[in-house]
């Protein structure tokens, strides 16, 4: 059986993306209103995807988007390293998701933070059920946005693995950027990504 490698968007596409973000940040910081608008829209897009796909809390998405909007606007005015913007943005969104969860009163015991996950018998994080309730209208939007099969499979992953998949495969961050956002080594990112891909594949076969 013949196999072909993926057309890999990394690292070249990742580098292009990072450079694109850096140009946009520099232009926005220099007073370009159109660049600022595009940057703020991107920040909110990142926040929306991260809220839904990593944290699995559709009801938090718009609050996290607002947080990303305001923080990005303030950050750009004092930017020193435009190249580091993307890492800063994903770290900020991740923190906003965590803070949002902590502020919830009466949070159900089964909810688990992104970095924790449940630990299985082999010391690896086990799957964690994520909360999935949202307003019916929002659920319709979400269903039409990303395939239900993929979202269900993502839910089956431990949160820390889910984040690696989303950042690397969906958001197109480089291994180094993912390592910076997740606070783990690049080698660990690669290991988790490999395991997550296999787990995701198995989960997709089951849904």
């Amino acid at each position, binding site marked *: 059986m013949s196999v072909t490698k993926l057309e890999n968007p990394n690292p070249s596409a990742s580098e292009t993306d990072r450079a694109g973000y850096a140009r946009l940040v520099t232009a926005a910081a220099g007073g370009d209103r159109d660049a600022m608008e595009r940057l703020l*829209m991107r920040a*909110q897009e990142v926040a929306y*995807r991260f809220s839904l796909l990593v944290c699995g809390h559709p009801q938090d998405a718009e609050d996290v988007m607002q947080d990303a909007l*305001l923080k990005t606007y303030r950050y750009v005015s004092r930017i020193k390293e435009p190249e580091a913007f993307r890492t800063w943005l994903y770290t900020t969104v991740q923190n906003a998701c965590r803070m949002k969860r902590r502020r919830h009163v009466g949070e159900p015991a089964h909810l688990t933070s992104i970095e924790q996950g449940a630990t299985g018998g082999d010391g690896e994080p086990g799957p964690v059920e994520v909360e999935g309730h949202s307003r019916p209208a929002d659920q319709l939007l979400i269903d039409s946005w990303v395939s239900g099969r*993929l979202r269900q499979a993502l839910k089956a992953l431990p949160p820390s693995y889910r984040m690696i998949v*989303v950042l690397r*495969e969906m958001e197109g961050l480089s291994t180094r950027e993912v390592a910076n956002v997740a606070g783990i080594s690049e080698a660990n990112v690669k290991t988790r990504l490999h395991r997550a891909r296999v787990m995701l594949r*198995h989960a997709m076969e089951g849904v």
Partner: protein
Amino acid sequence: MNMDVNPECGAMLAGISAYLDGDLDATACDAIERHCRDCSRCATLVDGLRETIGLCREAGSAPLPEPVRQRAKASIERLLACENPIRS
């Protein structure tokens, strides 16, 4: 998850992500491709992973649902109207 693999399949599996990411040299790629020609289970796994990764990348490029996008745009307009004016 445990595929009860033989050593050759195990070696293949260990390098499969690097292979799919284009991180392996030509010799290592050839070894994997040769193995997959003879091992339908590994070949199926490689194809399945490729499909899964493709679906993820497709989802990552999906634009925001239009109502969400409209609300995001309105938030930006409100923020820029309230904060210090930025040059056009």
